[in-house]
């Protein structure tokens, strides 16, 4: 085993989409900085093999991203095992909805949760920026509240025949629907990537049409703007003996050698996402910081957030042909707003084609086995003229202080470090309105199902919070937050937390675009900060 010391200007810890965006913006603004991205997992840059991985995934259910996780680097309550360069955004669906102004003013408008320490107009500008970076196509929003300051970089993903059919059906309810914006090329060559080929497997896009961070990392490496130290797990951040500055990060190689590395830098950016950023701060407890770093408020790992969801499958009179780009969906933003005088309920509303109850079956209603043409005839009969839509709402729910990431002493990795354990808890006002939320969604579903002889087949309430964030929430008060609106920790001038951990609340739609917008804003602030010597 060997040990080496590496000096840099900026160290980014965690190599997912947040790191990709931050590194790109930072090195664009400050090209002379020595910037190193340190990632525990490996790089998955073998784009040429992706079609083959996709085939194995479809045929055998094999991991379409071989080697994208570390077996002993997981934890309870974490919704993705992905730990690789690119992170979970290697296999995301590319959905890039914006939050709305209401998300940033929950306290002012409704007396709920907290306000974000950022103006909507400021965030909106970075949404446009994020959409350019990721390559987003979308429809211009018809609702005045969703007004954009710039057009989408690309046209919207065209609606498939099935979605056009479902749009006709769903709008009979009086609720307007649009194509969901997505970071998938609808123009060939945008950012050097291919146009979407509707391969139906966005989780492993074989053409590169859907944005994934490997595109950004490869460019940054080719242009020698960053160094990428993959298979390197940062285990501790170490503060200065007498000041609050962070002076180094201690890491170990995950390449089987057990070699150790000390990174000394002027600035440290935590870009490891909602789980691993808080985790590292807590894991770095010791000496003058017995509760972990950046944790004078006691809030590191608290207010873990996300949104709950309810899904409903509705059968109606229609003819669909499942399998024609079925990962694309409709969205309505009609319910992002809630009049302050009304009972609080906010959510998005999405519609997909579905094959539920429309697949081949082995037994008929009387329990007799079906074979050959009898099975085929039964299948055909059930798919002729009746189709199924999956309708899902992401509900705006708010975390309690006890919604926590903690260190699980009973679950340690090979290096002896406790792994994270996440237990989401909703705050009292959210719990108090849960029944009203369900009643509201049920009424909406009934409204949708009234058209075309609709019938609810199944309802399912999610048992986890999707698109999680939090753990290092932003705010202006150091006693009530971990970082400022740019992600700089209140306690350590050269330590920043970027992206999803900084969200005080999780909104009511997919979070990645918001994580990226906040990251770009943070990166500009980091770039504008005076250079800090590494020692």
């Amino acid at each position, binding site marked *: 085993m060997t040990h080496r010391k590496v000096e840099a200007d900026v160290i980014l810890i965690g190599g997912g989409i947040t790191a990709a965006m931050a590194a790109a913006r930072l090195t664009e603004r400050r090209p002379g900085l020595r910037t190193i991205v340190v990632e525990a997992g490996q790089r998955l840059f073998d784009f040429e093999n992706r079609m083959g991985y996709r085939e*194995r*995934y*479809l*045929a*055998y*259910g*094999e*991991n*379409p991203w*071989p080697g994208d*996780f570390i*077996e002993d680097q*997981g934890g309870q309550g*974490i*919704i*993705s*095992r*992905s730990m690789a360069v690119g992170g979970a955004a290697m296999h995301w669906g590319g959905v890039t909805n914006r939050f709305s102004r209401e998300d940033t003013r929950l306290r002012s408008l409704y007396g709920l949760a907290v306000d974000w320490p950022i103006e909507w107009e400021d965030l909106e500008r970075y949404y446009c920026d994020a959409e350019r970076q990721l390559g987003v196509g979308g429809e211009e929003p018809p609702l005045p509240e969703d007004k954009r300051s710039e057009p989408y970089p690309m046209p919207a*993903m*065209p*609606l*498939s*025949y099935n979605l*056009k059919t479902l749009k006709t059906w769903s709008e009979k309810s009086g609720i307007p629907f649009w194509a969901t914006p997505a970071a998938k090329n*609808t123009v060939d060559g945008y950012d050097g990537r291919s*146009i*979407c*080929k*509707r*391969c*139906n*497997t966005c989780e492993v896009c*074989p*053409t590169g049409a859907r944005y994934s961070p490997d595109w950004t990392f490869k460019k940054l490496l080719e242009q020698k703007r960053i160094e990428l130290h993959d298979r390197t797990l940062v285990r501790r951040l170490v503060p200065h003996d007498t000041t609050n500055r962070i002076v180094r990060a201690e890491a170990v190689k995950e390449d089987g050698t057990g070699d150790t590395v000390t990174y000394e830098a002027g600035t440290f950016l935590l870009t490891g996402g909602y789980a691993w950023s808080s985790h590292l701060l807590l894991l770095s407890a010791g000496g003058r910081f017995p509760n972990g770093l950046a944790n004078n408020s006691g809030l590191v790992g608290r207010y873990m957030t996300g949104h709950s969801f309810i899904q409903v499958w509705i059968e109606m009179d229609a003819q669909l*042909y*499942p*399998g*024609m*780009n079925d990962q694309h969906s409709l969205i309505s933003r009609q319910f992002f707003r809630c009049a302050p005088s009304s009972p609080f309920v906010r959510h998005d509303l999405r519609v997909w084609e579905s094959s539920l109850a429309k*697949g*081949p*079956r*082995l*037994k008929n209603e009387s329990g007799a*086995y079906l*074979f*050959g*043409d009898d*099975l*085929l005839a039964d*299948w*055909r009969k059930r*798919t002729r003229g009746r189709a199924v839509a999956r309708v899902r709402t992401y509900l705006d729910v708010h975390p309690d202080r006890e919604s926590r990431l903690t260190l699980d002493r009973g679950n340690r990795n090979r290096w002896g470090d406790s792994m994270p354990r996440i237990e989401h808890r909703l705050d009292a006002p959210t719990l108090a309105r849960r029944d009203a939320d369900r009643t509201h969604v049920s009424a909406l579903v009934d409204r949708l199902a009234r058209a075309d002889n609709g019938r609810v087949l199944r309802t399912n309430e*999610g048992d*986890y919070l*999707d698109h999680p964030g939090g753990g290092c929430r932003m705010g202006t008060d150091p006693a009530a937050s971990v970082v400022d609106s740019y992600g700089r920790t209140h306690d350590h001038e050269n330590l920043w937390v970027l992206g999803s951990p900084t969200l005080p609340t999780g909104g009511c739609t997919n979070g990645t675009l918001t994580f990226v917008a906040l990251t770009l804003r943070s990166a500009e602030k980091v770039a504008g900060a005076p250079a800090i010597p590494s020692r």
Partner: protein
Amino acid sequence: MRRREVLKLGAAAAAVATSGVKAQESSGGLEGLWPVAQAVLPASIGADGHREALAAFMAWIRDHHAGRYLDHGYGHTRVAKSGAAPTATYNVQLQALEAAARRRNGKAFGALDLVARRALIAEAFAALKIDSTEGRPSGKHVAADLMSHYFSSAEANDVCYEAEIGRDSCRALEGSGLRPEPLAKGRAS
């Protein structure tokens, strides 16, 4: 998969892919799989359709690799590896069908009419509590796996909907909004 099993079923796959139907019916190399295919796959896709479905299934078996990490999912994650190829079990199950046919009907399984074959397969399914086709073969029973493999395919989806859907095929964005073309002549009856 063990080498001998590969050879046994691999020979069957090769025979299916290259020989005529008559030859298949008399071929001892199939070890009972061909008459199973005739019993569980739609007659309407024809002998060529059966041959293609069986060849695809054999290719699936041949290319199965044990010990590969499976997709670890999202939301509720799990780390798991693929199990051994079910070939050995398949051969035992095919032999069991053959033995049952001779015991019950005094004939080889392949010599029974489709109704009798299906009755024996249904009994085997019932004994194993197999109630549904799955998204991909699960190893419970060779006949159920052949059915799962075929009926979950893009080919069968097209046949069911009688349309050129081409699920999981990559194609241009252009034309997204159009209803798929009717199934090409000769792809089904």
